[in-house]
C-alpha cells in the first residue's frame, strides 16, 4: 500500500515536470511576446511606430525575452527550486507567487462556497427526488437541471449581467466588492456586499455541481434503498424517514466522498468563464489575461498549479477507493 502511494507520488512528480515543459512550450507557441503587447499598447496611446518598437526592444532585452526558450525555462525552474519563486510577471512587475497568493483566497472563497452549495443543495435534492421516484418533483428537477446545465456558462453569465444592468440597474457589478468595502475590515456588511457581487459565479459554477450531485445521490440512494439490509430495517418497523436518514443516506454518500479530491480543481477552473465576464479578481481571469498578454510566467505557474491539483485529486481519489475496495490492485 505504502509503496503504491510512494510510486504514484513519484510518477506524479515526473508528470508535473512534463506538464511544466509542455505548458511552457504551448504558451510560447504563438508568435510575439509580452514586449510586442507593450508595443501595441504604446501604439494605441498614440506613439509612433518607431518609438514603440524601440521601447519594446528595451523591455525585451531587460527581461530576457530575447533569450532562447530553454534558457527562459531553466531560469523559471531554477527560481522555483532555489528561491521558491514562481517567476516574474511582466505586466505586474512583481513576483508571480505574490500575485497568485493575492488572488488565491478569493478564488478559494468562490470555489469552496460553490462547492458547499452544490454539495448541500445537490445532496438534499437527490434525497428529495429519490424518495419521490418518477413523481412530479423527480421529473421537474431532472428536466430543470438538464436545461440549466445545457446553457453555456458564459451565456448564463451574460444573461445574468444583462438582467442586473438593464433591468435592475444594479451598480458596480463588475468587481468583488463595492469600492467602499475594498479597504474596509471584515464585517457582516462586507460579507453581504461580497455576496451581492459574487452570487452569479456561485450560482453558475455551483449549478453543474448541483446537477451532478443530485443525479449521483439519487442513483445511489435508489440502489441502497433496494438493498437487503434496508429492507430488514423497514421490516423492523422503522418509519421510512428514519430508514432513509439513518441507513440509506450514509451509505449512498460513499462515492460522493470518494471523488471530493477531484472536485477542487474542477471548481477552481469552473469559475473561469463567469469570472472573465464579471471581471472578478480571481485566478481564472488572471490565467486568461496572462495568456493574452503573453505574461508567460503567470500562465506557466497557474497551469502548473492546476495540473498539480488535478494530479493530487486523482491520487487522493485512487487511494481512497483502494482503501474502500480491496479488490483494486495496487499496480
Amino acid at each position, binding site marked *: 500500500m505504502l509503496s503504491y502511494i510512494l510510486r504514484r507520488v513519484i510518477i506524479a512528480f515526473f508528470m508535473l515536470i512534463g506538464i511544466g515543459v509542455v505548458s511552457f512550450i504551448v504558451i510560447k507557441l504563438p508568435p510575439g511576446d509580452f514586449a510586442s503587447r507593450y508595443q501595441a499598447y504604446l501604439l494605441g496611446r498614440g506613439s509612433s511606430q518607431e518609438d514603440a518598437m524601440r521601447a519594446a526592444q528595451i523591455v525585451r532585452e531587460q527581461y530576457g525575452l530575447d533569450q532562447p526558450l530553454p534558457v527562459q525555462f531553466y531560469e523559471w525552474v531554477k527560481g522555483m527550486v532555489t528561491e521558491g519563486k514562481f517567476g516574474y510577471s511582466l505586466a505586474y512587475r512583481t513576483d508571480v507567487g505574490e500575485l497568485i497568493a493575492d488572488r488565491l483566497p478569493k478564488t478559494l472563497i468562490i470555489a469552496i462556497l460553490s462547492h458547499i452549495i452544490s454539495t448541500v443543495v445537490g445532496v438534499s435534492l437527490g434525497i428529495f427526488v429519490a424518495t419521490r421516484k418518477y413523481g412530479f418533483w423527480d421529473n421537474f428537477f431532472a428536466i430543470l437541471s438538464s436545461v440549466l446545465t445545457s*446553457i453555456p456558462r458564459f451565456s448564463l453569465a*451574460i444573461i445574468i449581467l444583462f438582467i442586473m444592468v438593464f433591468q435592475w440597474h444594479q451598480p458596480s457589478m463588475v468587481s468583488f466588492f463595492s469600492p467602499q468595502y475594498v479597504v474596509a475590515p471584515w464585517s457582516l456588511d462586507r460579507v453581504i456586499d461580497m455576496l451581492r457581487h459574487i452570487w452569479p459565479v456561485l450560482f453558475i459554477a455551483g449549478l453543474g455541481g448541483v446537477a451532478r450531485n443530485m443525479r449521483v445521490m439519487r442513483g445511489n440512494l435508489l440502489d441502497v434503498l433496494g438493498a437487503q439490509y434496508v429492507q430488514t430495517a423497514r421490516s423492523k418497523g422503522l418509519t421510512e424517514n428514519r430508514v432513509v436518514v439513518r441507513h440509506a443516506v450514509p451509505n449512498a454518500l460513499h462515492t460522493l466522498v470518494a471523488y471530493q479530491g477531484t472536485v477542487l480543481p474542477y471548481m477552481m477552473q469552473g469559475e473561469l468563464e463567469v469570472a472573465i465576464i464579471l471581471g472578478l479578481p480571481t485566478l481564472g481571469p488572471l490565467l486568461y489575461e496572462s495568456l493574452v498578454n503573453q505574461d508567460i510566467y503567470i500562465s506557466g505557474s497557474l497551469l502548473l498549479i492546476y495540473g498539480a491539483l488535478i494530479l493530487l485529486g486523482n491520487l487522493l481519489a485512487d487511494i481512497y477507493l483502494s482503501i474502500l475496495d480491496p479488490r483494486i490492485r495496487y*499496480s
Partner: protein
Amino acid sequence: MITDQQEITTLDEIAAPLEDHESYFQLVWRRFRRNKVSIVGALMVLTLVFLAIFADFFSPTPISQIDLDNSFIPPQQVHFIDHEGNFHIRPFVYNYTYTLDPTTFRVSWVEDTSKAYEIQFFVQGSEYKLFGLIPSNLHLYGVEEGGTIYLLGTDKLGRDLWGKACEAGRISLSMSLFGAIISVVLGSVLGVASGYYGGWIDNALQRFTEFVAAFPNLPLWMALAALVPKTADSFTVFVLMACIFALLSWTTLAREVRSKVLSLRETDFILAAKEMGASDARIIFRHLYPNTLSHIIVILTLTVPGVILAESFLSFLGIGITEPLISWGLMMRNTQDIQTLGQNAWILAPIFFMVSAVLGFNFLGDGLRDAADPYAAQ
C-alpha cells in the same frame, strides 16, 4: 501448430452463443423505445440535423446573403387578426418601419399596418443548391415581394436569425460529431490496448491519459488561434478545431473502456480464445471491441454536447470559427457586447438551438446507456 483455418472454426464455435448481435440490438432497441425521454432527445437531435441540412429550404431569405439595410430587426409577429380586428384564416405579418429618436438615435420599430403580407407555404424564392448540387428555389414559407418575414429577427448584418441558426447547426453539429468520433476512436483504441495488454503498457498509457487530462485546454486553443496560417480558409480551421477537440476529450472514454476491458479480460470466452492461441489483434477486434461497442456509442453521444459547449466558449473568446462560416457559438459571440444586447435582446435566440442540441444528445445518451446496460433496472 494450429492453422488459421482451424482457429477460425473453433473460435466461431466458442464465440457463437455470445455473438448473438441481432438479438442484443433488438433488446437494446426495445428498451430504448420504452424510454420516452430518450425518444424526445433523439427527435430533438434529428430535427436539428434536418433543419441544418435543409437550412436553405427552411429559411425564407438566402442564408448566405447579407442585407445591411435590415440589420437588427426584431422578430416579426405572426398575426391572425389585423389592426381592424378582422380575422384571417391565413396568418400574415406586417413589415416593420422604424423611427429614430433624434437625441439618442434609439431605433423604435413599429408595424406598418397599411399592408399585410400573408404567409405562403412552399413558395418559389431565391435559388440555392441542395447538398451543394441540386438547384432549387423552393422555400418552406415566405411572403410576397416587398414583405419581409424574420420570425426570430435579424443580426447585425441583416440576416435572418432563424435561417442563420439553422445553417449554423451544420458547423456546430458536424464539428462536434466529427470531433467526438475521432475522440472515441482514439479513446477506445488506447483504452482497449491499455486494458488488454496490462503491465507497463497499461501503466504508461494510464499516466499519459492522466497527463492529457490534467492539461488545461485554454492555452492550446489560444496558441492554435495565433498559429493558423493566413491562407488557411475557415474550413481548414474547422477541421483543425475538431481534431484538437478530439485530442483533448478522449481521456474519459479511454479510462472507461479500459475498465470494461479489464473485466472482460478475465472472462471465460477471452481466456478460452487465448488458450486456443488466437492472435492479440483477433481477440481485440473480434471479441473486445464488439463487447464494448455499445458503451462506446453511449460515450460518443455524451461527448457531442461537451464539444458543442466548448466550441461556443472558444467562439466567445474570438478564437473559434469565423465568418463566412457560422456556428451557434459564433452567433452567441454577438451577444457578448452587453450594450448591443441591451438594444437587441432577440440576438440571444440561437441559444435555444444550442440548448436543444445539448439537451437532445444528453437525453439520447442517457437513454442509450440505460438500454445498452443489460443489468439496469427494468
